[in-house]
């Protein structure tokens, strides 16, 4: 690493890893419940488990994004972070809010609004916390000697994540209006501004790992995020087909959301082309694997599996079934979970000075988690298609169908076990790196790809 303040990222990454493990625990609880073993029903009913699972996901991803920003922005702006104590305060308060929210869910302190379950008083603390974070990042950029497109795309993504959180905090008596604005948060996050964060982090990684000229990479970055908004903003309409919105959304949402995969395909081509153009000498093979897998698997999960149910004629039958859960898992995994794992794999050796670049653990972690997740996706997919056929086409009762699906959740749990072994190995490697050390300052040149 170049600046010692970059190591603040470590705390955020460590928090991410911890919350990821917890998220998986709740995934298993739900997997067993779906299989007919809802043994924790009296203590952790399904609605507690699902809320905890999804919110832990969002919190660990945001923690990963913040860590990434604390690592990348000083480097790109070529200066120390504006304030380390402020960053520490922000970290501690972020962790506290996260923990309070998770405990609160178990005491039914929540708002039953999918993905935005954090209760209002905590929302305000989240907002305050994010302001601290953004202030620190923006002031670093302003005082910096350099200003790069990569850094600004990443920063703008983070600023808009904060702004778009606000419409989700308004109370409406009409559940349809409530849902309409909830998608401004959820959809415009994952299919909008989070892609700015993704584009920014991927460009940074590609610049570092392939040595391709920054100007070339950043030009394509603009094109890709341009395609994202061109399709993704009006693509929000795919959530307005059947939730009380006027019927023009069927047409508009259908056309534009069907174009969204183009932006994800753009990411794939972008990353693979830069890899092929660049030199292949960078020793951190694991970081490269994760970077490329992010670009590829996001296209499968978000692009292909999104397209599979985004047309109104299909969505009429798949809307709100396990088909949606299939897509949700691979999309979040490919685009955002893998992204965080990529930046962690890249930055940990640089922060700690330990070159765990191509370890057996690390390679196994990569393959097992990806294969496990693909199998989980298949299990959800088979269950989902079965559900759609039996319940929505043949017209059997929901619970009659649910019993037929038990076996697919058994497959889900087997696949999830493979996935979890992969994640555990990843975390073991993470811990083997140890803590960031100032001895690692200024070592990055010794393992940077040289333009070639």
């Amino acid at each position, binding site marked *: 690493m170049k600046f010692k303040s970059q190591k603040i990222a470590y705390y955020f990454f460590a928090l991410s890893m911890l919350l990821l493990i917890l998220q998986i625990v709740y995934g298993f609880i739900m997997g067993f419940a779906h299989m007919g073993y809802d043994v924790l029903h009296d203590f952790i009913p399904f609605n507690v488990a699902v809320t905890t699972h999804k919110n832990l996901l969002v919190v660990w991803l945001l923690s990963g994004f913040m860590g990434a920003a604390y690592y990348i922005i000083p480097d790109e702006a070529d200066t120390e972070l504006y304030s380390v104590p402020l960053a520490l305060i922000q970290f501690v308060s972020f962790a506290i809010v996260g923990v309070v929210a998770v405990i609160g869910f178990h005491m039914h302190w929540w708002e039953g609004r999918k993905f935005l*379950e954090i209760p209002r008083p905590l929302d305000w603390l989240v907002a305050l916390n994010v302001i601290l974070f953004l202030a620190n990042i923006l002031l670093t950029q302003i005082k910096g000697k350099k200003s790069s497109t990569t850094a600004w795309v990443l920063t703008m993504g983070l600023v808009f994540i904060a702004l778009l959180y606000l419409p989700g905090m308004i109370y409406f008596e009409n559940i349809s209006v409530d849902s309409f604005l909830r998608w401004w948060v959820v959809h415009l996050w994952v299919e909008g501004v989070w892609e700015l964060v993704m584009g920014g982090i991927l460009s940074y990684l590609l610049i570092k790992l392939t040595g391709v000229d920054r100007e070339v990479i950043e030009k394509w970055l603009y094109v890709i995020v341009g395609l994202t908004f*061109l399709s993704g903003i009006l693509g929000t309409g795919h959530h307005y087909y059947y939730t009380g919105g006027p019927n023009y959304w069927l047409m508009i949402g259908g056309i534009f959301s069907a174009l969204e995969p183009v932006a994800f395909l753009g990411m794939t081509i972008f990353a693979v082309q830069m890899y092929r153009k660049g030199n292949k000498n960078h020793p951190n093979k694991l970081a490269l694997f994760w970077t490329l897998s992010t670009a590829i698997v996001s296209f499968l999960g978000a692009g292909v599996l999104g397209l599979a149910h985004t047309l109104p004629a299909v969505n009429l039958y798949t809307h709100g079934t396990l088909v949606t859960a299939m897509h949700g898992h691979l999309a979040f995994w490919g685009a955002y979970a893998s992204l965080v794992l990529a930046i962690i794999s890249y930055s940990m050796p640089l922060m700690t000075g330990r070159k765990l670049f191509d370890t057996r653990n690390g390679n196994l972690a990569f393959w097992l988690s990806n294969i496990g997740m693909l199998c989980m996706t298949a299990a959800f997919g088979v269950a989902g298609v079965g559900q759609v056929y039996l319940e929505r086409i043949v017209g059997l009762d929901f619970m009659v169908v649910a019993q037929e699906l038990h076996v697919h959740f058994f497959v889900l749990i087997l696949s999830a076990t493979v996935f979890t072994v992969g994640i555990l190995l990843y975390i073991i490697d993470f811990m083997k790196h140890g803590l960031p050390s100032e001895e690692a300052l200024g070592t990055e040149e010794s393992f940077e790809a040289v333009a070639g």
Partner: protein
Amino acid sequence: MLSKRQAKIFFLGGTIFFAVIFLALSVDSLLNGIPKNTNAHLLTEQVARGKYLWERNNCMGCHTIMGEGAYYAPELTRVYSRRGPDYIRTVLNFEGGWGPRGRKMVQYNFSDNEKEDIVAFFEWVNKMDLNGFPADPPLKQ
């Protein structure tokens, strides 16, 4: 070839253009489309209390409504016409948790008034025009 500046203009121009269209359509949806499709004039205080209870208890953490929620328990958009109000009242506080087919619902402790609020909420949702969702199963005899 495309220059970096042109790429930037494409990004900013496209984003602003589509954001403006989106905002305009959203305003129209919020002011005209949704109130009409959801019969906003029938949204009484009782219905609003029912919606509050729906949220307060995170019913969406197991069920879906308008196709949104979790996939552990049945879709409830049309539960009012499918099962009727008495069935709904019975399910809510059922001793030991409602679960005729093994999978159990949480046992609640709603007052009689609260039960009526929830029933009123479902009755209102039941009347929404959702562009054909949920569809009649094509193969159902």
